[in-house]
C-alpha cells in the first residue's frame, strides 16, 4: 500500500531514489513507519531545493533512521536546469551562456532530431553532429569530409535533398531555406542523381517519341530540365568541390533514355554556376552524356577560373572538338589534374592536347584512358612530353597505341625527369615496342610506376622494366629519407606503402 505513492513520487525525479528504496523495503515494520515520512520529505525537497536549510532537522532525522539515504540521491539544481534546458531547447536554445562543463552536459542530452534552424549555427560540438550522422546514416566516412562531423552532416543532408528534388513538384524553398544554415559548412557537393520533372500525361507520348526518333529532343528539352544549381551554389560560400552525375539511379524497369538527359539548358545553367563560384577547386561531371557542344560551353565558362585545379569529365561523349576546348583551358587556367577517361577522343584531339601540354607548367596528371588516340595522338603526346617539365602522371591505357608510340616514349623516358607514373596497359605495344621501352627505362631514374599489362610486351622485358622500377622506387625512398637525416630503422615497412 505504501509502496505505490512513494515509487510514483520518486520515479518522477530520478532513478537513484528508487534503487535506494529497495533495501529499505525489506522489513515490513520499518516500511510502515518510514514511508510516509519519506513521501513527505523527499518530494518537497526535490521540488524546491531552497527548503534544504529549513528542513535540515527533518533530514537529519531521516538519515539517522535510514543509513542508505543520502543527499546525493537528490538531483542537483544544475542538473535540473540542464534537463529543463534540454527539454526546451527547441523553443529556447541556451548554450553559449553556460559554463563549458554544463554546455557539454546539455549537448550530450540534446536530441539529434532538433530542427536544423536551431542547431545549425549554434552547436559546434562534434559529438552532437556525430550522433546526428550516425542516427541518419549507418555508414559515415568522416575522413572524406575533412574530419568534421558537422560538415559531413550538412554535406550529406544537402546532397540528399538535391538528389531527391523533382523539378516542378518539390518546392525549391526546401533547399534554399537550408542555405543560410549550411552555407558555412558545406565544402563539397557530390550529387550522383538528378531527377527529371515528372509529367504524367506526356510520359507515354514521350516514350513513343523516343522510340520513334531521338532527334526530337530539342523540343522536349525545356521540359526535361533538372534542378538548377545556380542559387544553391551561390549560397555556399566555401564550396570547393562539385561532383555531379546527371542521371537516375535505381530506375529498374522504368528505364527510359529520357531519364539520362543532360539538356542544353542544364548545361548553360551549370556553366554559369561554376563560373560564378570562385572558390571551386574540383569540378567533376561524369557519366552525364556530355558531348562536344556541352563540353565546349562548360569549358568556356571555366576559362581563367581563379581556383580550379581539377577537372573530371570522364565517362562522357566528348570528341575531338571538346578536347580542343580542354586543351585551350590548359593554357588558360591553373588546372593540375585533367581526367578525360572513357570519352571519344581521337588523334586530332590528342594532338591539340599535346600542343597545349608542350608548354604547360601546371598540369601534373592527365588521364586519357579508354579513348582512341591511336599512334598519331600518342606520338604527338610523346613529343610534347619531351619539352614538358611538369606532368607526373600519364594514363594512356586502352588507346590502341602500338610500336611507334613506344619508340618515341622510350626516348621521352630517357630525357624526362618529372614523370613518375605511366600507364600503357591494354595497348598493342608489341614485343619490339617492349624492348624499346626497356631501353628507355634503363636511362630513367625517376619513373616509379609503369603499367604495361596486357599490351603484348614480352614477359622478359616487362620483368626487367619491373626491376628498373623497383630500383627507382628504392632510390626515391632514399631520396625522401636522406634529407630528413632519419635513420632507416625508424620508418621501414611503412614507406613503400606511402
Amino acid at each position, binding site marked *: 500500500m505504501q509502496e505505490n505513492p512513494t515509487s510514483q513520487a520518486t520515479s518522477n525525479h530520478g532513478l537513484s531514489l528508487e534503487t535506494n528504496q529497495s533495501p529499505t523495503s525489506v522489513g515490513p515494520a520499518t516500511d510502515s513507519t518510514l514511508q510516509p515520512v519519506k513521501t513527505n520529505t523527499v518530494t518537497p525537497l526535490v521540488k524546491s531545493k531552497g527548503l534544504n536549510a529549513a528542513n535540515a532537522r527533518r533530514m537529519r532525522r531521516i538519515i539517522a533512521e535510514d543509513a542508505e539515504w543520502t543527499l546525493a540521491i537528490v538531483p542537483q539544481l544544475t542538473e535540473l536546469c540542464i534537463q529543463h534546458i534540454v527539454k526546451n531547447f527547441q523553443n529556447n536554445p541556451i548554450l553559449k551562456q553556460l559554463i563549458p562543463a554544463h554546455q557539454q552536459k546539455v549537448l550530450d542530452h540534446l536530441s539529434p532530431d532538433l530542427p536544423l534552424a536551431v542547431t545549425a549555427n549554434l552547436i559546434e560540438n562534434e559529438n552532437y553532429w556525430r550522433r546526428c550522422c550516425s542516427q541518419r546514416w549507418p555508414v559515415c566516412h568522416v575522413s572524406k569530409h575533412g574530419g568534421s562531423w558537422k560538415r559531413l552532416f550538412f554535406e550529406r543532408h544537402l546532397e540528399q535533398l538535391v538528389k531527391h528534388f523533382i523539378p516542378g513538384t518539390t518546392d525549391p524553398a526546401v533547399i534554399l531555406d537550408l542555405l543560410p544554415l549550411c552555407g558555412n559548412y558545406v565544402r563539397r557537393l557530390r550529387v550522383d542523381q538528378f531527377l527529371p520533372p515528372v509529367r504524367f500525361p506526356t510520359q507515354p507520348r514521350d516514350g513513343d517519341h523516343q522510340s520513334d526518333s531521338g532527334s526530337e529532343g530539342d523540343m522536349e528539352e525545356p521540359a526535361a530540365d533538372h534542378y538548377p544549381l545556380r542559387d544553391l551554389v551561390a549560397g555556399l560560400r566555401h564550396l570547393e568541390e562539385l561532383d555531379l552525375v546527371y542521371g537516375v539511379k535505381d530506375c529498374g524497369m522504368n528505364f527510359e533514355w529520357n531519364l539520362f538527359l543532360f539538356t542544353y539548358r542544364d548545361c548553360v545553367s551549370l556553366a554559369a554556376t561554376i563560373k560564378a563560384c570562385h572558390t571551386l577547386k574540383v569540378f567533376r561531371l561524369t557519366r552525364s552524356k556530355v558531348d562536344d557542344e556541352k563540353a565546349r560551353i562548360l569549358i568556356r565558362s571555366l576559362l581563367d577560373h581563379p581556383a580550379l585545379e581539377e577537372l573530371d569529365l570522364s565517362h562522357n561523349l566528348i570528341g575531338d572538338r571538346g578536347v580542343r576546348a580542354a586543351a585551350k583551358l590548359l593554357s588558360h587556367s591553373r588546372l593540375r589534374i585533367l581526367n578525360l577517361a572513357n570519352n571519344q577522343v581521337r588523334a586530332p584531339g590528342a594532338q591539340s592536347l599535346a600542343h597545349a601540354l608542350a608548354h604547360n607548367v601546371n598540369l601534373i596528371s592527365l588521364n586519357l584512358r*579508354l579513348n582512341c588516340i591511336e599512334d598519331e595522338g600518342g606520338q604527338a603526346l610523346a613529343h610534347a612530353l619531351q619539352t614538358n617539365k611538369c606532368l607526373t602522371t600519364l594514363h594512356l591505357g586502352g588507346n590502341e597505341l602500338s610500336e611507334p608510340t613506344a619508340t618515341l616514349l622510350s626516348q621521352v623516358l630517357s630525357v624526362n625527369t618529372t614523370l613518375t607514373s605511366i600507364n600503357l596497359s591494354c595497348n598493342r605495344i608489341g614485343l619490339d615496342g617492349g624492348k624499346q621501352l626497356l631501353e628507355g627505362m634503363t636511362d630513367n631514374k625517376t619513373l616509379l610506376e609503369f603499367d604495361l*599489362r596486357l599490351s603484348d610486351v614480352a614477359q622478359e622485358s616487362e620483368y626487367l622494366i619491373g626491376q628498373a622500377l623497383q630500383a627507382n622506387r628504392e632510390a626515391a625512398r632514399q631520396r625522401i629519407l636522406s634529407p630528413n637525416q632519419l635513420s*632507416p630503422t625508424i620508418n*621501414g615497412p611503412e614507406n613503400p*606503402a606511402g
Partner: protein
Amino acid sequence: MNPTGPLGILEEKEEEHLSTPILGPSVHSENSQERIQARRLRIAARLETRRREALGEYLDGKKESEEDQSRSYKQKEESRLKLAKLLFCGTELVTNIQVATDIKEIQRRVEEEEIKRQRLEKLENEVKTSQDKFDEITSKWEEGKKKKIPQELWDMLNSQQLHCAGLIEDKNKLINELQQELKTKDDQYVKDLKKQADDICLLLERMEEQVKSVMKTFRQELVHIEKAFEMERQELLANNKKKWERALQAHNAKELEYLVSRIKKVEEYERQLNKQRIWDCEEYHMIKIKLEQDVQILEQQLQQMKAIYQLNQEKLEYNFQVLKKRDEESTVIKSQQKRKINRLNDILNNLRLKYTKQIKQFQEENHSLTSDYKRLVIQFKELQRAMRRFAITDDEKFREIWLMNEEEAKGLIGIALDVDKIICTHHLGLPWTAPDLWFLKNIGPISQQFKKSATEIVEEVLMQTEDEGPEENVSEAGSYLDLPKQVSAKTTRKLLMLLCDESGFLIESKLLSLLLPLEKSECYLLRLDAIFSALGIESEDDLYKLVNFFLKYQAHHLPGNQDQSSVAVGLQSEKFSLEAGKKENVPEGEQEEKEPPPSPRLIHPNDVLKVLEAFVMGLNRPRDTGMPLKVWKEVRDNSKDSEYWEALAQVLPVSRQNLWDALYTALEKYHLILTERAKLLVENSSLEQQNTELQMLLQQYLGSKINSQLQVPPTQVFRVPNKGS
C-alpha cells in the same frame, strides 16, 4: 554504356589495393597472360616465404657473428621489402581485373565498330538494291499506265505486287535480322552484366583476401621484427652479463690478491711487534733497577727530612704558645680599643650634630650677610652712579662757573686793558703794547691734557712722516712734543710698518679683503688699528711702551750695542715696571736718558714676533693694576687755579696802577676846569637861543598879513637890515 558503371567502381576501389599473392583466384581468369602472371606471382611469393623461413632459422646462428645492431635493421629492411612487394603485387592483382575489363571493352568496341560498319554497309547495299527495285517498280508503273489492256494491266499489277512484296520482304528480313541482332545484343548485355557482376564479386573477394593476407603478413612481420629485436636484446643482455661476470671474476681475483698480501703484512707486523716487545722488556728492567736505587736514596733523604721536621715541630709549638699568649693580650687590648671606639663614636655623633647645627646657623648667617652685602653693593652702585652724576654735574657746573667767572674776569681785564690803552694813548700819548699773557688765551678750566689713543698717535706719526718726507730728525712739531724724545718719528714709523707687515695674522681676513682698494697709508692705519686692538694696546702710552720695548729688545740682543746700552737697559727695565704707575714721569725719565735710537738698522723682521710675545706678556701684568688708577685719574688738580686767577687779577701791574692814581688826580683837576667851561658854554648857548627866539618873533611880525594891509609894510622898513642880516 553499361561497362562504365563497374569500371567507375573499380576505379574507386583501386585505391585500396589489397590482395593475396598466395591465393590465386586469377588463375581461373580467362585471360592467359593474367593467369601466367598470377601463377608467377604466387610462385614468387611462395619462394619468398620459404626463403624467409629458412633464413629465420638460419640467421640465428649466422647473425651472431655479425654486428649486433644490423640484425634488427636487416630484419626490418627485409620485412619492408617483402611487404612492399606484397602490396605491389596485390595492387596489381586487383587492378588486373580492371585492366582485363578495359581490354575486353576495347575489343568489344572494336568488334562493335566492325559490326556497325558491316551493318551500315549491309544497310546501304540493301538501300541500294531496294532503291533499284523501287525504281524498277516505279518505272513499271509508267509502263503500266501505257497499257490499256486489262489483262496486261492485271499481269503487270500482279508482277508489281510481287515485286513490292519482295521488296517488303527484303526489308522485313532486314528488320528481322536487325531485331535478331538486337536480341543477341540484349542477351550479350545481360551476359556482360552478369560477367561484370562476377568480376566485381571477384574483385571484392580479392580485396578481402588481400586485406586479410596483408594483415596477416604485417602481423607476421611485426612478430618477426619483434623477435629480432628480442633476440638482439637477449644477445646484448648475454654479452653484458658475460662482461659483468668477467669483471666480477677479475674483481674476485684482485680481492684474493689483496687478501694474501694483507695476511703477509699482518705476519710481518706481528714479528715486528714481538721484537719490539722483547726490547721493551729489557728496557723496562733496566729502568726498574735504576728507579729502585733512586727510591733507596730518596728514603734516606726522607729519614733526614723527618728528623728535621721533628725539630721544627718542637720549635713551632713553642712559638705557638708564645703567640697564644700574645693573642690573649691583644684581645684584651682589642676590647679596650673597642670601648674607646664606641666612646669616640658617641663624641663624634655629638660633634656631628653640633656641626650640622653650626652649619645651619652659618648658612642662615651667610644668607643674611649675603643679602646684606647685595643690598650694600646695590646701594654702593647707586651711590657711585649718583656720585658720577654729581661729579659730572659738578664738573659741568664748575666749568660753567669757571667760564662765567673767566668771562667776567676777561671782560674786566679787557675793560681794564682798554682803559689802559686809552689812557696810554689818549691821555699819556705813549705807545701801548698789549701784554702777552698766556692765561688770556686759556678758556675753560685748566686741566691735564687728555691722552690720545694709540691710533691717533699712529695716524699723526704717519701723516707727519709723510709730510716731512726727507727731513729725518726734525721732530719738534707742536703735536709731536709729547712723543718720547729718544724715539724719532722715522723709527716709529719703520717699526710700525714692520709690525704691520709681520703681524698680519692678527688682522681678520675679512678686513684684509676690504683694505685692498684703499690707499697705502690708510691701509696701514687700519691694519695697525686692528693689530693694536688684538694686542690690547689702547693708549698712547702703550704705543710708546711698545716702541720702547722694541728698541730695548734690539739693544739687548744686539751684541754690538750691548755694552753701550747696558746701563740704560737697566734703567729702562726698572722704569718699565714703574711705567704703569707713573705715566707723567715717563717722558721726563726718558728725556733724561737722551738715548738716541740705537741704530738705523731696525730689529730683524724674524724677531718681531718674539718681541711682540714678550711685550704682550709684559703688558698683561700692568693691566691688572690699571683699574683703580683710572678712578684716581679723574680727580683733577686745582693747584694751578689760584695761580691762574691771581694772574688774572694782576693783569695790570702795580706801577701802572700808581700811574693811574696820579693821572686820576690830574684829570680831576682838568675836569673842574672843563665843568666851568661847560657852564659857560651852556650860558652862551642859552643866550644864543634867546637871540634866535627874538629873531623868530621878529620874522613872525614881519611876515604877518596885517603888514600887507598896512600902508607901509614893515618889511620894506626892515629891508635893509634884513638884507644885512
